[in-house]
């Protein structure tokens, strides 16, 4: 059974992101002009305004740099409470807001390594695959 989730943002650009997720690939937009990665999805590079953007495959590795656990229901029963969220610094640099999979508060610690995983979900637009994060391996040879 797919997990029910609040609605995604859909439309140009956004749809590409979710199509890559359906193929179990986390891809973000890298600007060919200035080289920076933008996230969330943009129409033009958030650093230089260029439209020359390409979907680059992320390693899926990262570490937790912040977290918050909702004890109040903001989604009218769609999600169980408490509800854990984590902010992951991807190995490539951008910060990615997501959920932990296979661990939960109070076992979320700042700095813990994580690895992307995809879970089957659905919203009012239909089924989709959502990138979340499992415990990862400590980086070899320093970070």
């Amino acid at each position, binding site marked *: 059974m797919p997990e029910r*989730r*609040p*609605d*995604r*943002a859909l439309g140009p650009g956004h749809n590409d992101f979710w199509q890559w997720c359906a193929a179990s690939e986390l891809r973000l937009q890298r600007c060919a002009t200035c080289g*920076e990665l*933008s996230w*969330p999805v943009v129409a033009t590079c*958030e*650093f230089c305004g260029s439209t020359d953007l390409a979907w680059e495959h992320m390693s899926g590795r990262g570490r937790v*740099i*912040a*977290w*918050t*656990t*909702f*004890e*109040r229901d*903001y*989604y*009218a029963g*769609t*999600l169980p409470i*408490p*509800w854990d*969220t984590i*902010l992951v610094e991807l190995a490539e640099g*951008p*910060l990615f*807001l*997501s*959920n932990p999979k296979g661990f939960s*508060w109070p076992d979320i610690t*700042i*700095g813990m390594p994580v690895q992307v995983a995809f879970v089957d*979900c659905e*919203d009012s637009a239909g089924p*989709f695959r*959502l990138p*979340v994060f499992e415990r990862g391996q400590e980086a070899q040879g320093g970070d």
Partner: protein
Amino acid sequence: MPQAIMPPPSPGLSRKAAIVGIGETDYHTDYQAARSRAPGYEAPSVESLSLAAFERALADSGLSRADIDGLSVSFTFGGPPPMEMAALLEIEPGFAIANGNIMAGPLPVVCAAIAEGKARTVAMIFAVASRSIGKQFGGASDAMAEGMPASYYYFHPWGWSSQAAHWALMFSHYQATYNVREEDLAAVAMQVRRHASATPQAVMQTPMTSTDYMASRYIVRPLHLFDICLVNDGAVCLIVTTPERARDLPHAPVEVAGWGEAKIRNRKLDTMVRQRLRPQMQEAGGQALDMAGVALADIQLFEGYDASTIHLINQIEGFGFVEPGAGIDFCKDGGMAVDGRLPTNTGGGNLSGSYMQGWSQVANVVRQLRHEAGAQQVADARLAMTSLVQTDQAHPLIFARGEN
């Protein structure tokens, strides 16, 4: 409806307008009435709140309706257009504008209008009926809107929403960075509550202990209920005029000396969580200080945007009053008390006073600089700073006591 654009900070606009009247609705009494819902209770409207605040500000200023030749209205969740409001207030302004909503932007717009001679004496009205309309900050109904920061809608599929969640992310990172416990943050909630306890207007006046704080329920861990501001109904009216006109009026004028503006342009989550908007506060704070021709060390009291406890600390640190990581200890040591190095949110702020989207802070600064703050008076207050820092932008204002 087209909205006024905030004028860039410029020394030529410094002290070209002064606040000479303030009016606020009864935050405490209205909150109690809304809670108890006695038979016959009628929820306030934007119109009724606006009229009440205007009448008080006008009386406070010593002016008459005929003196008001400008009107500026600021409604976050809707309200009548300016000329409808003018009719309601029974004034006939030649200059009437819809002027943003939360504080910072609207006041510089009016100062510039007065400096340019578009109006001489402007009534500025802010009103909100968040509580009465059941406004919830966050959730699926907070949909994508033009110009809204991406974080407010984008993360719904991960179940992440609400302003409070922004502050919670910041604090979990802050805790790890500076080795801070939840109970340390209680000091901020308790300090602001102490101020509220001495302020009859404040919604929450019952003294708070650290035990009370820790026992308050979590909203978004690691933040408790007492870390988050009070959504409420109310209105604030400011009467603003030229420094020359202000000299003839009963109260010491409070001149608008400086303002600034800086926004996050990219890496929003990083700037918000790891830097807690310090770059924006440094930039906008520098603009405001330069415009006013004063130094940060000259600021005698501070009214920050305490949407949450940790965010008040973000501002004390971000503008440079203390070093990053030193804000909570500064509070614990009494630095934010009325007799501290930087008296902060002496009217109870948004946490315990009332969340008026930055406007009540300005009213409180006016009382302080007039030396009418009673038991909460900061000795010989002459220069103050307010701050409206949202999750993606910083807007400080600097005020100076004028002479009359």
